[in-house]
């Protein structure tokens, strides 16, 4: 029904020594979609993200990224993490990895790095082009902070933010790299219900802006409410995929994982 997927993964396999963390995984994300990846702890979800973003080099398989609006398809295999980000795929981390000694605004400004140019000479001489670029970085970063509701704390050190705010800052930082596909690794972990609700709204907004989202999440309410499609993993393998209603009633999924959680 849809055109070429913006992300197409086929046969992705990752071995650590003798342990197969990912076993011939297939997955695709289409433009504008919100796709969730769920599965019990240790199923290999984060490993999957790490393979996608170039932090691990997968043992086998293919990862093809196709920018929307008719860009050329590229293989992400063998690219370094920063190159993957340049191609338009950004991520957040499950165990928050902010730059704690930098301010909130600066954290987002770092995200602008790969879309800006200034280098040694620009930094030293601060020519007109560099000044313009710096201004753009600040303005855009500030705008992103406004979007995620952190503009008020732009000058705070990142480490002083609440847990929920830190998670939102991670998203803001990822957005600053201008991705068309955003990977969120358990964005709601540790959030209270109200924060989760705000997060739900934020993710929808980001999606409305035209970004595709692939998220790992344990909060089933959030997953069911947000996702267009859901992939379920267990022991490094995909065990099911489909729209939320299908997943909800899939016996294999219920057996492996959902059972008591989703009926509520």
């Amino acid at each position, binding site marked *: 029904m849809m055109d070429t997927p913006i992300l197409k993964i086929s046969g992705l396999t990752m071995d*650590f020594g003798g342990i197969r963390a990912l076993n011939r995984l297939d997955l695709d994300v289409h433009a504008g979609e919100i796709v969730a990846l769920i599965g019990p702890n240790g199923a290999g979800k*984060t490993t999957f993200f*790490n393979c996608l973003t170039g*932090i691990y080099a997968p043992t086998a398989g293919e990862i093809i990224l196709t920018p929307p609006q008719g860009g050329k398809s590229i293989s992400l295999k063998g690219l370094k993490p920063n190159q993957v980000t340049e191609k338009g795929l950004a991520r957040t*981390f499950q165990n928050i990895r902010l730059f704690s000694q930098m301010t909130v605004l600066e954290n987002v400004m770092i995200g602008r790095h790969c879309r800006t140019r200034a280098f040694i000479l620009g930094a030293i001489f601060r020519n007109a082009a560099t000044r313009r670029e710096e201004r753009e970085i600040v303005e855009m970063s500030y705008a992103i902070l406004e979007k995620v509701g952190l503009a008020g704390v732009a000058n705070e050190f990142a480490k002083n933010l609440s847990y929920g705010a830190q998670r939102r800052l991670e998203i803001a930082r990822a957005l600053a790299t201008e991705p068309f596909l955003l990977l969120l690794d358990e964005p709601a972990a540790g959030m209270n219900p109200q924060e989760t609700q705000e997060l739900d709204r934020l993710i929808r907004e980001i999606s409305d802006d035209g970004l595709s989202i692939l998220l790992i999440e344990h909060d089933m309410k959030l997953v069911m409410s947000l996702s267009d499609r859901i992939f379920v993993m267990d022991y490094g393998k995909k065990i099911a995929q489909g729209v939320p209603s299908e997943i909800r009633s899939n016996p294999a999924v219920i057996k492996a994982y959902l059972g008591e959680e989703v009926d509520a």
Partner: protein
Amino acid sequence: MDYFIELFCSGLTRGAIYALIALGYTMVYGIIGLINFAHGEIYMIGAFTSFIVATVLSIYGFPLLAIVVLAGLAAVVWSSAYGYTVEKIAYKPLRHAPRLSPLISAIGMSIFLQNYVLLAQTSDFLPFPTLIPEFAFMEPVAHIVGSTDIVILITTTIMMLILTVVIKGTKVGKAMRATSQDRTMAMLVGINVNRIISVTFIIGSALAAVGGLLIASHIGQINFFIGFLAGIKAFTAAVLGGIGSIPGAVLGGLVLGLTESFATGYVSSDYEDVFAFSLLVFILIFKPSGLLGKAETKKV
């Protein structure tokens, strides 16, 4: 051929001592992931303590055997005490600090201890008393292998056997292995991790002290600066073998000792230390996991 054997033996002797010091690096690294830069200084303090005790005793006319035993004992006791204290002062408060903080602290400790010995004693080279006599039965081969070499080899072998027994066979050794695999887990199963770390420093320091005593009586002189070079070379040995691995430290020590011995014997003695440093740089660049170590996977 004699020359070859001579080089081989002196390489083995050197290597055995490097290994003895390297064990301290590797054990500490295995447990707390720190390059204990001050370890070379612990070795130097061992050599100095044995020098002082041996000289005092010989001036007061003690018999040679008593001198050897007491000097060795003093070296072990005081080196261990220093190792223990250094850990408590410079590393323990930094258990949860960023990775480079304890390393900088260790470098500071190393400089401090060097200058402490310099100020408390002297900057001159001091003649180390002869503790190991030329054995009569060694006479026929004395031109190739000295008695000191034999004593060094035997002593280091004994020390390593003791270490193996301690690590493999005792409760403390088991706790050490557990702590080095997973500190948090070890803590959860009731191991007193702080105590185990202290024990590790004490054992490592004791081995370094023995190394200090042996090398000082081998070379015949000491000064406050000997710890720096010996420390770096022993560290090279530890990395060469695979840091964190105990058999690796021994293997690394021997390989380094032999390499150095042959390189200085057949190539040039001017660049003796350059060999060791270059070896260090090359291993770290090309095979940081060493000969017997395991490659690290980064956790994200």
